[in-house]
């Protein structure tokens, strides 16, 4: 039996989660210190992938990164063939899950903002040090929850992945794609098998989230008690 859809899905989801955790958290950390109408617009842009149908996201990415676009052409010249390759599955999953991580990280970081950050400032800490030593550790439970959600959502992407990365078995065919094409070709047993695998991975992710939530509650209580 070819296990490549499961392997690809896990690789893609972990890679996308890693990328989105870093970019989403940094974007949120940058954003919470700033106010302005232009930034509200930027927020809309950041959150767009959440409200657009994944097929539209995939298609827009294809337009942006395809060989005929300026960016895609440049990347092609440099030897990076993103479209219809494994990196495309990661890009598709990362873009569709970015809003989820961005929103969760923003909420988690904003909760820590206030006197603790101000105290650190009066003690001479740079903004970078405040981010690393105050915001990140105290927002960590919320960030971890965001990571789990991101992972689960990345695992399930179908539309954007199909359009940007195509359905190439062993290279871009992730679990949702494998299930769709198994059903289409009438191979119900295969579809059931992959579905069960997906359920298993999703349950594991949820279990991890649950553990985090419990841990977080404990931590939150300790912080509240101190106030």
């Amino acid at each position, binding site marked *: 039996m070819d296990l490549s859809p499961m392997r690809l899905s896990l690789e893609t989801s972990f890679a996308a989660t890693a990328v989105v955790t870093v970019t989403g958290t940094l974007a949120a950390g940058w954003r919470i210190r700033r106010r302005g109408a232009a930034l509200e617009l930027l927020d809309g842009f950041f959150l767009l992938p959440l409200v657009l149908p994944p097929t539209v996201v995939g298609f827009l990415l294809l337009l942006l990164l395809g060989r005929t676009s300026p960016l895609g052409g440049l990347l092609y010249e440099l030897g990076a063939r993103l479209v219809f390759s494994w990196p495309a599955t990661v890009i598709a999953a990362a873009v569709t899950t970015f809003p989820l991580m961005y929103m969760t990280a923003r909420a988690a970081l904003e909760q820590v903002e206030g006197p603790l950050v101000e*105290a*650190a400032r*009066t*003690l*001479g800490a*740079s903004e970078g040090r405040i981010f690393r030593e105050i915001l990140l550790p105290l927002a960590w439970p919320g960030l971890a929850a965001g990571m789990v959600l991101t992972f689960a959502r990345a695992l399930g992407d179908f539309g954007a992945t199909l359009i940007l990365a195509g359905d190439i078995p062993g290279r871009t065919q992730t679990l949702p794609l494998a299930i769709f094409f198994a059903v289409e070709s009438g191979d119900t047993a295969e579809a059931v098998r992959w579905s069960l695998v997906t359920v298993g991975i999703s349950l594991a992710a949820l279990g991890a989230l649950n553990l985090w939530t419990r841990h977080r509650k404990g931590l939150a209580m300790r912080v509240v008690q101190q106030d």
Partner: protein
Amino acid sequence: MEFRAEFAVRRGAFRLNVALETKGERVGILGESGAGKTLTLRTVAGLERPERGRIEIDGSALYDSVHGINLPARERRAGFVFQNYALFPHRTVEENIGFGLGDLPRAEQDARVGALKERMHLGGLSGRYPRELSGGQQQRVALARALAGEPRILLLDEPLSALDFHLRGLVEKELLDSLAEYRGVTLYVSHSLEEVYRLCDVILVLAGGRVLASGPKEEIFRRPPSLEAARLTGCKNFSRARPAGNGMVEALDWGVMLRVAQPSAQAKHVAIRANHVAFADEPGGENVYSCTLAESTETPFRRTLYLRLPSGNGDGFHLQAEVPKDRWEQMRSRPEPWKVRLDPERLFVMAE
């Protein structure tokens, strides 16, 4: 250490105008909620940006709108003790105290943290987390953390208000000892006039974003410059007044003529503090008038008497007097009317 600040801050509809100068005396900033006390501290610390003005320590500017200077909070070397202490919950006592010392050599950091732990009686608590400390201990950690970087100015925002009432007296005593050893400028914010009086040398009275009075505490309490300042420093008895010549004023609401030690041709109000209202055994004498008791309330050690002057206007009481419990026990059996005496040295007149 010389500290000078004069600035205007705007937060929505609220405007704050502060002018303040000190040569190292401890300054108490007194006012009700929303008077602008905390905003004043935050502006000095660099956590809020004023519209204009200048803030300087020993001649070097922290903020100057004319020269475009605005040092960020991290470069001001201002130690800030927040109302709820804002200790880092994921750091131990030792790490909290040493947080601002990252740039110093390790040995120097350890020496400073060690000395502060000793001084603040935090020796056995080094490895504890803030949540494992009592309110008083948290307050000492917050103060030690603020002092660790040897700040040029120490800003305390109601540092006792988060404590249980029974703890305050004790912690206040410790705080006074620590502040006495500190050689920089101290600004102490509180809404408790007694606390400010005990801990500070100079008082700044704020109301609605304006400075109502500032000066040595004895001065402010003995002769508040305005009605509002008198009220905020705890004075309870006021009467409209007009000058009557020869060191006398006519107290219009009380319907009596009073000799005052410091008369003023501009007298508009006359006032006396409740604990300065005295009682005479004999009728006659200067500033002695008969009165009746309208009502009285009890606190654990004192009795507050609400007195009516027959000559006064209106239906309510005219004077509020505070007497110790034992004095009250002597007085209560005596027949009314009593004789109230308003000491000319204790009365003060205000030109508004």
